[in-house]
């Protein structure tokens, strides 16, 4: 039962433009959401997170938006840079559930010159 879904396996975007990655979830108990970035042959690294009490969190070029009623979150990267080419995972958490993260399948982002 996939509780966190990333329906776009890949995204190609031109350098300097906006990348928008989407994530949907089914479990209304999730109260914390994270985005991880993964380069080949490396482990995922934390990018940005958002609590369910907020609808937006911004960190430099990265902004995460949360729509609780739609059970949807998105990651915006503006402007996209070649170094952003990676796989991005959405993760969700019920914060009193011993930290058991549920991950989406990932979206491969390719930023072209």
């Amino acid at each position: 039962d996939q509780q966190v879904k990333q329906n776009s396996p890949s995204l190609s975007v031109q350098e300097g433009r906006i990348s928008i990655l989407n994530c949907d979830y089914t479990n209304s108990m999730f109260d914390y959401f994270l985005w991880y970035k993964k380069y080949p042959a490396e482990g995922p690294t934390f990018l940005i997170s958002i609590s369910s009490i907020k609808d937006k969190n911004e960190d430099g070029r990265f902004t995460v938006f949360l729509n609780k009623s739609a059970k949807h979150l998105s990651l915006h990267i503006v402007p996209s840079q070649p170094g952003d080419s990676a796989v991005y995972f959405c993760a969700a958490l019920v914060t009193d559930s011993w930290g058991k993260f549920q991950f989406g399948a990932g979206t491969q982002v390719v930023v072209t010159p």
Partner: protein
Amino acid sequence: NAGVTQTPKFRILKIGQSMTLQCAQDMNHNYMYWYRQDPGMGLKLIYYSVGAGITDKGEVPNGYNVSRSTTEDFPLRLELAAPSQTSVYFCASSSSEAGNTEAFFGQGTRLTVV
């Protein structure tokens, strides 16, 4: 600052062999996890631990065992390796302190069972 260290990085096993994937963290985190990532799939939780001496099953525990004798170490044991266990394995840790929900990952172990 090592973070989460996994060994080995790569391993080829024959069907029926066994091995232990090592994981160590130096951040004094209580929570530790083992995930596997199959091609085109998200990370699936195999086992987790909330502290030394305490472990529990995740989504896909069959064929694996873990132990947690110290805060730092969380080895994953594969008994009787099968081709279905070909995957990339990630160990992670996180703090149990309120507000610290980020998980830190190791670099992964790529395991092939032939």
